[in-house]
């Protein structure tokens, strides 16, 4: 048996009543992951504490403590035997367990000992030290009883029994440090050396052997590891051969073992909730914070998927910093958009599980407003600013303003900086924002700044650039674990080949048929005849005709190219379709119809038969093509028998319009019609649109489709014209051709305009405007404004409600008139809302809190100003929706419909409008269920509900796509903390099972649910449907829970299967279809669970292509049928696959994710 296995088995033997750690299974080495277990035991501990069940409180603590000790033993053994993966897993588990133990100790010090004291040898030394200290400080000899009481009053470690104190006394007497007289004890004058807990801590962490070697190298205690982390990495590498990722985890574990800053600085000057001691931070959030802390916040960046709660990690940092911050010092949080600014303020001030800081302490606005606030005496401690606001150059200069940034840092005595979504900066190293970060880095390196840390959800493409900013990617949080716990929505990816539609294919075939006829016609006339007639036309005339017909039009050296071509034609032995212009030149010069031409060539006897065949193709094409320019040409009278009109321009460089007219005049000729048909291939795209529709239909057929995001190239609906015919291309083309689909209500969002369907029965643009005013202004902004004003006042509930109803009335009246001219100004906001409310509050007898509320409700207060600005912005957006311009849209099929165009302005309102699109798609109060976006929709676009994302660009913009992909994986709003906790328990309960597909032998649903708190039991019962099934594996319940409460996102990447450069190709040897090399390269670093078998795959094949028989011939209907078949039960397979991936690949993910390995 492997050492780890025996360790695990021993642990299982020694502990009862707690889930066993995972065991090695077959050839795949797997490791116990403490996260879920620690979280579960901690929540049980807290619940027992709440209900006063002290035996259970102690029991839960000692269960976790036992795991802690055992994990230490595994770590020491793994270090000794140099098993890297096991060392990594053990260190990570130690950090998680230590955090949970510390949290227990913080809330119940009587029941939970210091972790260091858990080690028996250290425990005895600490007892001895404390007893000696009590004796030394006492005025006279003490009895054993008094000693025990004073010892326990110290509250440093768990309550000691008299026996333990007696043992300590005996030890002290033995060494001459204490004396006993008549049952009373006192300290002797012999000098006493206290135990070196710092040194003992390192020995506990790394084992006596390694810690002795490290001590010889100058690292004698935990504090040395923490204060000389950089050198420590090298020493550890020398001593153990392990690389920097192990060192990072050792430093983080050391940081977790030393007392938290809160213990040293119990009360900072700023009041806030105790977040670090609460149960709210998730284990991995504590781990990531520990890594930051262990590295002393010195320029580290952590990559964690979107929606993984990076803000909370930031708040843990802020909490740590606030404890030691002096007056006037500040923390800066830099964010990409004002939407983020608002989120941070919410998290810092309003969220129940946030820091709950007084709003006056948190600033959100521009640096200019901050300067004004400071002049007015408001000294916020946390400044939330956008990168753009800070990095903005000096007006008129357009260059980076180093002095401006330094003045900002000095004026606000900035000590700590958080860079949120730092990839935005790394994306452009020459930007002002990047220069700002370099200044921070420089200030950090000389000590002017104390801390600088960063977060990103998508750093994959920018890892190298981080170094250019002087930042270091310290840790990449593996997505598998987050997905398995539902913090990131499980997802699957598909390749969606698109081809020509059935109609387009028929058109294409007819055009091919026409080409074959035309070539035959050309040969029938004969190259020799054509060349002779051509040469008979004067060179100048030929030149004029060639130019007029648009030969080489638009090319810089057109004259030269035409000349060369005309000379080639004089001697050419055989004409092909590439030389087709020779025909109209001859025809126009001689005023010959096609019939004339055949007659001249003495081959006119079969002309009528030939004409009939051309006509047949023409008439079939007219029925297939949408009415328009091409059908006009195809319907031109006198086909084949009329002389082309002589309307050619005389100009050396004719205008496009003249060329078009000249070409149209050729409509009656065989060659002229071909020239028009040749341009048809540029208008295709129906197949692409049809595949989008097929995806939506197949999704709807197989599961509950919430809403869809489509990512496409930005194209416009020709906004200046009252009519629009965008074809199929890009956002506008897709939007136009989805109009009128019965099950789809599309919206398109570009940086310059938003498009909505125009529906006379249900004017959607008006509906959106009403909803915006009602929900976003009246509810969201109004409630947030009110809460910010009263959050720090601790008003009793009744008074809060009274005030709130008065506020709602005032605010409602104000909002009712908002869209009138001038009504939304700051002045009106003050007159109609703030001033009456202040008056109301002044007379409400609220006591001491009155000045605080009045201060918040002043127009000089930055929060009020910010609200006024946002409300004004939303009012303008609502007006823009109401007055949306109607545009007639001609679909590519020829069907006429209409859309509403809402122009998007610049600045703040653009951000508001683009944020609004996420809210529109997320709400179920509006019918819009599909949004088409372009590459603006990335970081900061907080869309939640869509469970289908389609890349219709054929992967044009990889970076934008990756960021959007992250956006679509936010968990569903129904995935609550209760569901998260339950998932933890379920995963922990099933950990004894080696075969993930087999029910756990020790699991019984009923007894499991019986032990759950009521809220979790309700969810579990719902998921397990225990009324029908007596028992099943906890994994089955976990899968059901995920499917019921969370979403599973399907991500489709469309790939072109036709044309000269298809994006998929047939591998003859493997007899499979694969993406082209360029597309495969894009997928090298991506991974997902395959929807067919639930296997976790990294690389191109993680997103299987949906095929029927052959993507070159599959129709959209074929595609839809194949997809619908694959989607059946896919979500269950996907969720199960992610759970398995988390279980089986946890260590692989970890190994690959720690930077620098």
């Amino acid at each position: 048996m492997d050492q780890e296995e025996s360790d695990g088995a021993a642990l299982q033997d020694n502990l009862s009543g707690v889930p066993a750690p995972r065991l090695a299974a077959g050839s795949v080495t797997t490791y116990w992951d403490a996260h879920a277990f620690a979280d579960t035991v901690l929540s049980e501990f807290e619940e027992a504490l709440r209900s006063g069940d002290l035996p259970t409180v102690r029991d839960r603590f000692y269960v976790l403590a036992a795991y802690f000790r055992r994990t230490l033993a595994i770590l020491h053994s793994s270090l000794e035997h140099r098993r890297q993966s096991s060392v990594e897993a053990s260190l990570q588990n130690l950090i998680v367990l230590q955090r949970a133990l510390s949290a227990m100790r913080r809330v119940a010090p009587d029941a939970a000992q210091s972790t260091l004291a858990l080690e028996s040898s250290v425990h005895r030394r600490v007892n001895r030290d404390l007893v000696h200290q009590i004796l030394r400080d006492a005025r006279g000899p003490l009895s054993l009883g008094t000693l025990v009481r004073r010892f326990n009053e110290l509250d440093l470690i768990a309550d000691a029994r008299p026996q333990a104190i007696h043992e300590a006394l005996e030890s002290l007497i033995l060494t001459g440090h204490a004396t006993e007289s008549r049952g009373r004890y006192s300290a002797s004058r012999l000098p006493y050396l206290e135990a070196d807990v710092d040194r003992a801590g390192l020995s506990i962490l790394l084992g006596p052997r390694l810690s002795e070697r490290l001590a010889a190298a100058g690292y004698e205690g935990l504090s040395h590891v923490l204060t000389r982390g950089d050198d420590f990495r090298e020493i550890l590498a020398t001593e153990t051969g392990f690389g920097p990722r192990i060192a990072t985890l050792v430093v983080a574990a050391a940081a977790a073992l030393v007392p938290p800053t809160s213990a040293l600085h119990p009360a900072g000057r700023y009041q806030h909730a105790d977040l670090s001691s609460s149960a709210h931070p998730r284990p991995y959030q504590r781990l990531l914070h520990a890594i930051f802390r262990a590295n002393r916040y010195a320029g580290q960046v952590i990559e964690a998927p979107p929606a993984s709660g990076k803000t909370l990690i930031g708040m843990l940092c802020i909490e740590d910093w606030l404890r030691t911050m002096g007056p006037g010092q500040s923390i800066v949080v830099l964010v990409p958009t004002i939407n983020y600014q608002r989120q941070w303020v919410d998290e810092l001030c309003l969220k129940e599980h946030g820091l709950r800081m007084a709003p006056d302490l948190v600033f959100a606005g521009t640096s200019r407003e901050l300067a004004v606030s400071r002049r007015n005496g408001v000294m916020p401690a946390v400044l939330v600013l956008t990168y753009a606001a800070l990095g903005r150059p000096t007006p008129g200069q357009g260059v980076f303003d180093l002095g401006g940034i330094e003045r900002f840092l000095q004026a606000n005595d900035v000590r700590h900086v958080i860079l949120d979504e730092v990839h935005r900066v790394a994306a452009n190293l020459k930007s002002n924002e990047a220069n700002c970060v370099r200044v921070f880095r420089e200030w950090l390196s000389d000590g002017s700044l104390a801390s600088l840390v960063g977060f990103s959800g998508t750093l994959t493409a920018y890892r190298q650039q981080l170094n250019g900013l002087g930042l270091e990617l310290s840790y990449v949080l593996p997505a598998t674990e987050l997905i398995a716990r539902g913090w990131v929505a499980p997802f699957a990816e598909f390749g969606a080949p698109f081809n020509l539609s059935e109609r387009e294919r028929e058109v294409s075939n007819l055009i091919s048929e026409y080409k074959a006829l035309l070539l035959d016609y050309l040969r029938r006339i004969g190259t020799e005849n054509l060349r002779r007639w051509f040469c008979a036309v004067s060179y100048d005339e030929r030149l004029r005709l060639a130019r007029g017909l648009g030969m080489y039009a638009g090319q810089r050296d057109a004259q030269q190219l035409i000349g060369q071509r005309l000379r080639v034609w004089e001697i050419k032995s055989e004409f092909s379709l590439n030389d087709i212009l020779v025909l109209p030149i001859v025809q126009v010069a001689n005023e010959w119809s096609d019939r004339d031409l055949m007659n001249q060539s003495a081959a006119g006897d079969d002309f009528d038969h030939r004409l009939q065949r051309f006509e047949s193709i023409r008439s079939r094409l007219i029925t297939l093509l949408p009415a328009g320019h091409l059908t006009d040409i195809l319907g031109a009278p006198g086909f084949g028998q009329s002389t082309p009109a002589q309307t050619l321009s005389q100009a050396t460089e004719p205008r496009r319009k003249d060329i078009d007219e000249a070409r149209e005049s050729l409509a009656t000729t065989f060659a002229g019609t071909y020239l028009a048909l040749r341009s048809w291939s540029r208008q295709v795209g129906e197949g692409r649109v049809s595949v989008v529709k097929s995806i939506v239909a197949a999704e709807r057929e197989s599961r509950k489709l919430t809403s869809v995001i489509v990512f496409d190239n930005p194209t416009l609906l020709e906004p200046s014209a009252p009519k629009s015919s965008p074809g199929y291309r890009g956002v506008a083309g897709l939007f136009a051709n989805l109009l009128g689909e019965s099950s789809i209500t599309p919206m398109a969002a570009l940086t310059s305009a938003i498009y909505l369907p125009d529906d006379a029965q249900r004017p959607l643009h008006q509906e959106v405007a009403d909803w915006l005013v009602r929900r976003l202004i009246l509810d969201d902004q109004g409630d947030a404004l009110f809460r910010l004003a009263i959050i720090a006042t601790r008003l009793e509930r009744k008074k809060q409600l009274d005030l709130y109803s008065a506020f709602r009335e005032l605010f409602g009246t104000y909002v009712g008139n908002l869209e009138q001219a001038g009504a939304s100004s700051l002045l009106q906001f003050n007159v109609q809302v703030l001033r009456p409310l202040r008056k109301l509050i002044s007379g409400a007898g609220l006591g001491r809190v009155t000045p605080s509320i009045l201060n918040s409700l002043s127009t000089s207060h930055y929060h009020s100003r910010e609200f006024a600005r946002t409300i004004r912005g939303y009012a303008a957006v609502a007006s823009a929706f109401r007055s949306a311009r109607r545009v007639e849209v001609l679909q590519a099929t020829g069907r006429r419909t209409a859309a509403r165009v809402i122009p998007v302005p610049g600045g703040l309102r653009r951000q508001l409008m683009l944020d609004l699109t996420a809210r529109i798609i997320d709400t179920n109060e509006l019918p819009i269920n599909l949004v088409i976006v372009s590459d603006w929709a990335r970081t900061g676009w907080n869309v939640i509900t869509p469970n289908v994302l389609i890349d219709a660009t054929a992967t044009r913009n990889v970076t934008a796509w990756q960021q959007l992909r992250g956006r679509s994986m936010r968990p569903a709003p129904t995935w609550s903390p209760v569901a998260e906790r339950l998932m933890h328990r379920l995963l922990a309960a099933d950990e004894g099972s080696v075969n993930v597909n087999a029910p756990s032998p020790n699991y019984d649903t009923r007894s499991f649910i019986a032990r759950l708190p009521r809220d979790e039991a309700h969810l579990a019962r719902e998921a397990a449907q225990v009324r029908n099934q007596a028992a099943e594996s906890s994994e089955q319940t976990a899968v059901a829970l995920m499917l019921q409460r969370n979403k599973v996102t399907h991500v489709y990447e469309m790939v072109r299967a036709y044309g000269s450069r298809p994006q998929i190709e047939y591998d003859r040897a493997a007899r499979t279809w694969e993406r082209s090399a360029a597309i495969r390269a894009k997928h090298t670093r991506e991974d997902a669970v395959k929807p067919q078998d639930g296997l976790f795959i990294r690389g191109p094949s993680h997103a299987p292509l949906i095929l029927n028989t052959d993507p070159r011939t599959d129709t959209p209907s074929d595609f839809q049928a194949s997809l619908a078949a694959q989607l059946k039960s896919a979500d269950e397979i996907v969720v199960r696959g992610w759970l398995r991936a988390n279980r089986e690949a946890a260590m692989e993910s970890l190994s690959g994710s720690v930077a620098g390995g």
Partner: protein
Amino acid sequence: MTDTRASEEQDESAPLLLVIEDDEAVVRLLTIKLPRAGFRVLAIRHGEAEISASLVENPDLVVLGDQIAARGDNYSLISQLNKSWAEERPPIVVLSSSHELSAIREALERGCDDYIVKPFSPSELIQRLWVVLIRNRLRKSAHAQADVLGA
């Protein structure tokens, strides 16, 4: 109250700056930034005894915070420095929150060599301190040459 800090491990030939400033944050920033720019820094808080004691160190330049003016001393310290050092007085740079023209004029009229408004950019401050120092050295050198020629 005296709070004197001098950076250790500094080149003794580096110009010595006497920083008289009560704002802890400014002192902290200057004691970090200025040594890295090639200065030695002696930072003290305002107080007659402390200032008198620091004068014996013969600083090359004095950076004067604006708390002096805020206390109503009305630049009497500058007069005191002028008196104490006479012609050997090092150049004085005022670091003040006031951007009023009258305050700037008063400082310069009393013989201050430069006036920098808070909030300030350390990079800019360093550049200006060097300019003042170099100008002072040139002036001294010119005087010395004149003395030689005069003799």
